[in-house]
């Protein structure tokens, strides 16, 4: 991760980030983010020192299982955690503004205008008693107080049309329950994009949808990104979705980042045993259907009682190869060889490559 000073808020910034591929500044920069919850059962370290950045026009896929901290990260960026229950530290800079520690009121102003969220379940995100169009128009007027009713309405109808809803003028007047699942998800995307946000966070946006509709929505997101040039964070457990839509991937495990890089790097030349495990355990439409899948043994860790050292070591096939290091030392995210490809694993790079070729490349989808 680039070591640059924190950016003074409001000022145009040019931090040094050596791994950036393009000359453009990353719109979102997250550094050493930590989110903790104090619960009845103990302190939950939901996110434990995660850093990443997303540029405008690019999509970062955050992949992980339940409890990996991927959704908590996104809620922290949007400032949606209850300050009474969550302790957030680290840096989150959106368009050069430092969000951690910003008053609630200011974060709220940014939310919806500069950054927006697409949820997994559109039915719970849309209010059942108002028409879909009115909700989108309201979302517009909140951040455009000078806009008249008519202007907001036109904008909402325009957005409904742009996300591919037929007869947007008629649909404007309808209630969420009159929309089908796919249409609802489109409507929520329209609502998220109505203020031209520069950062869109989509948390499992297609998990509740059927495959044929999922394909439509993923296409739509890609088209809209090309049009609006926004930065997108796509949170998902589905590696196939990431492979299809994302430019970069961040793999999370137990609240920490274990691997980061471009889609080609992480999905084609994965370096972390957890990523290997994910890839070889996914059933695929290709390859030998009669062969057994290769699952990751054991269960996801408890965030209250995270395994010492590398959190993945109890489930890792190769944990014993470094003596005690996997159990005692938390591995740092370090360069995995190629530019921009980072991995947090104690295994030496050449051994990792050898193991991957030997054990993983032949099985499952990694083939």
């Amino acid at each position: 991760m680039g070591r640059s000073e924190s950016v003074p808020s409001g000022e145009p910034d040019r931090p040094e980030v050596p791994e950036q591929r393009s000359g453009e500044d990353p719109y979102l920069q997250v550094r050493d983010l930590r989110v903790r919850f104090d619960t009845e059962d103990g302190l939950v370290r939901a996110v434990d020192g995660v850093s990443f950045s997303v540029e405008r026009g690019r999509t970062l896929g955050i992949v992980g299982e339940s409890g990996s901290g991927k959704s908590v990260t996104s809620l922290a960026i949007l400032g949606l955690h209850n300050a009474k229950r969550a302790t957030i530290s680290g840096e989150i800079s959106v368009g050069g503004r430092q969000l951690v520690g910003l008053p609630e009121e200011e974060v709220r102003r940014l939310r919806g205008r500069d950054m927006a969220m697409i949820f997994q379940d559109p039915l719970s995100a849309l209010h059942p008693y108002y028409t879909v169009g009115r909700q989108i128009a309201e979302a517009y007027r909140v951040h455009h107080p000078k806009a008249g009713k008519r202007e907001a309405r036109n904008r909402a109808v325009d957005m409904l049309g742009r996300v591919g809803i037929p007869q947007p003028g008629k649909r404007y007047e309808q209630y969420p329950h009159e929309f089908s699942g796919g249409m609802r998800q489109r409507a929520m995307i329209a609502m998220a994009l109505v203020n031209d946000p520069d950062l869109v966070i989509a948390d499992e946006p297609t998990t509740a949808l059927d495959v044929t509709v999922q394909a439509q929505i993923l296409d739509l997101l890609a088209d809209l990104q090309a049009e609006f040039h926004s930065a997108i964070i796509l949170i998902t457990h589905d590696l196939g979705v990431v492979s299809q839509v994302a430019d970069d991937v961040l793999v999370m495990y137990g609240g920490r980042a274990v691997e980061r890089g471009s889609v080609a790097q992480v999905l084609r030349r994965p370096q972390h045993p957890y990523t290997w495990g994910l890839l070889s355990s996914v059933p695929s439409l290709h390859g030998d259907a009669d062969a057994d899948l290769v699952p990751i043994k054991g269960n996801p860790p408890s965030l209250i009682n995270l395994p010492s050292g590398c959190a993945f070591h109890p489930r890792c096939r190769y944990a014993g190869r470094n003596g005690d290091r996997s159990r005692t030392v938390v591995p740092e995210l370090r360069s995995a060889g190629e530019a921009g490809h980072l991995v947090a694993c104690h295994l030496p790079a050449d051994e990792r490559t050898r193991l991957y070729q030997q054990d993983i490349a032949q099985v499952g989808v990694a083939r």
Partner: protein
Amino acid sequence: MTEALLTVRGLTKHFPVRDGFRASGAVRAVDGVDFDVRPGETLGLVGESGCGKTTTGRMLVRLLEPTAGSIEFAGRDITHARRRELRPLRQDLQIIFQDPYASLNPRHTVGRIVAMPLQVNRITPPGGIKKRVQELLELVGLNPEHYNRYPHEFSGGQRQRIGIARALALRPKLIVADEPVSALDVSIQAQVINLLRELQRDLDLAFVFIAHDLAVIRHFCHRVAVMYLGKIVEIGDRDDIYERPQHPYTRALLSAVPDVTQTDSSGRIRLVGDVPTPLNPPSGCRFRTRCWKAQERCATDEPALVPRDGGVQAVACHFPGPDGQDSDGGTR
């Protein structure tokens, strides 16, 4: 060929929709479904939400009462059998549920949960119920010592194993598995699929495996039936369905699955729109509203599920097979 264990003919379930007191129509959730399952065979039912696959599964274990059609299990008609008549058959016919949280009684210990089918049917296995339950727990890869624990102390994957142990308690011949892995994390999914495959092989179980995930079905099933809006549109052996799909819907479904090995999504079939409501399905072929091959005939004649070339693969389509020279629609 061996005799079918389960024979389903014209199975139909309509849920009446009431408008005040008057019945104003019906949701045609399942509308005339035919299939057979032979002993030790796994049949996958795949389709999108609202296609009727779950309703079909519930009718097979008689959690729902069929509106029409027949279910014959081990040579006996169980379509409308009463609880007492069903009792001897219950032992042979079990179900595994989707939600590992809702499917276990939170107030019961694991031992009680797994023993429930034995107790309900007043069966005392040799060696006692406890011994049998511990054998079952071991069989599904759980520690038999955890007999006295409660479901909330287990993770999702472990809970699903408990549900599987419960379904195995009566040594069934056929298990209906309703989305058994879709609520689990990716790494756990593979564990459970492998476990089910092993059990299937070792205990010679027949399965009706319901899922929306085509890749999961492919790794588990010998035969696959693709459902759309309450009907089977294509049925056949696994390789037929996955390598040589004939129905446009099957082809679109296979094409829509995002695959890790492919970053390029061009050349895929993209369906437009959503699945129509089963309250008022389209006339003729139900898929015609989203089909790029649809012709006038599709709106009037309903295609029957007919075997192709005398084989086992059957398709309900007027224009099956790959797109001809004249049609290039569908791909974008």
